[in-house]
């Protein structure tokens, strides 16, 4: 392709683009800005009209729409849970967010450079705040139990040995006083 042909093609692409803007604006009820450019190849114009008419939007079934809405609601509820349980844990329950049909757990996103990035959605089903809280509660309960236990408790043998020892100490003390 020569430079002249390439430039001609780019100009035609631009003309086509402007034409499509008008066609689609008209289709969505907007204003058609003036007459169509007579420079545009009529064959392209006809093809564009054909595609605009025949390439219709396909709607999913109502049942699918509601099923997915329900699934998204579950996922949204799971996303809200950490805030209620103590968001400081920062670990999100994403059980409901694993892929459709449970086949694949990855979501496909782009990073800031526009590169494809796989981001794991399947994470441990833990809520950090709740876990930390539970651990602290257990430790606290053990500490309280240890602090509040009766000072003098034990088996019969231990109690007997302790009584003998105390009696001996008392006797020695009395002897020293005498």
């Amino acid at each position, binding site marked *: 392709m020569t430079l002249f042909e390439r430039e001609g*093609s*780019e100009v*035609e*692409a*631009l003309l*086509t*683009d402007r034409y*499509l*803007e008008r066609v*689609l604006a008209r*289709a*969505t*009820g*907007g204003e058609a800005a003036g007459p169509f450019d007579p420079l545009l190849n009529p*064959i*392209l114009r*006809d*093809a*564009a*009209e*054909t*595609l*605009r008419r*025949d*390439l*219709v*939007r*396909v*709607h*999913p079934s109502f049942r*699918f*729409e509601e099923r*997915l*809405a329900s*699934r*998204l*609601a579950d*996922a*949204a*509820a799971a*996303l*809200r849970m950490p805030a209620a349980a103590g968001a400081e844990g920062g670990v999100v329950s*994403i059980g409901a*967010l694993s*892929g*459709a*049909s449970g*086949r*694949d757990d*990855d*979501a*496909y*996103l*782009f990073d800031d450079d*526009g590169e*494809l990035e796989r*981001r794991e*959605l399947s994470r441990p089903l833990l809520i950090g705040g709740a876990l930390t809280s539970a651990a602290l509660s257990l430790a606290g309960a053990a500490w309280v139990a240890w602090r509040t236990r009766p000072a003098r408790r034990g088996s019969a043998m231990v109690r007997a040995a302790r009584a003998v020892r105390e009696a001996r100490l008392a006797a020695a003390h009395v002897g020293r006083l005498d």
Partner: protein
Amino acid sequence: MARPVFGRVRPAGEAGSPRVTHLDRDRALVEEARRDPASFDALYRRYLAQVYSYAYYELGDHHEAEDATERTFLAALANLDRFEERARPADGEGASTFRVWLFRIARNVVANQRRGRRRHPQAPIEAAALVADPLDIEGGVATRDEAAAAWRAVGRLPADRRRAVVLRFVEEMSTAEIAGVLGRSEGAVRVLIHRALRTVARELGRSGRPR
């Protein structure tokens, strides 16, 4: 159809008059969904048919299109905090960078699904039959034939041209939005669509069209 436009008045510059910068038309819904994930439903309802339709044109199978749609919206919900609004005044009224972001997810979900697909794509004639008016029997046959020819012609296009055409004609995206979805320049998108139209015109001419 008039679409809601959100704008922000910027302070007057050296030129004097204040300027209104158009913001993403989905800004309010996105912010609400970030505050309360349950509000994501509004964005879902707004874009469900578009995402599903895109997936269907790409995969040619209703079940696979449903799978791709589901993955797309679940990923979008889970990663909504990563979405950055990048609306520019040049994008014009009604532009949505959220829609571009959503379709980029959809594009990657679909690409991944195509790689691991097991089902055969549905023939264009079957797909066209689904969208024809079921009550208009006589006209429906003609419509189906014509639509099938158009679908076939689009289906034979190279992948990047087919995507550009679907985003342009089915999703009614602007050139700038398509460029954002496909990761190409606006000039490249114009050329893709132009070449696609030439090919489609040739194909339809061979089959006795365009009308």
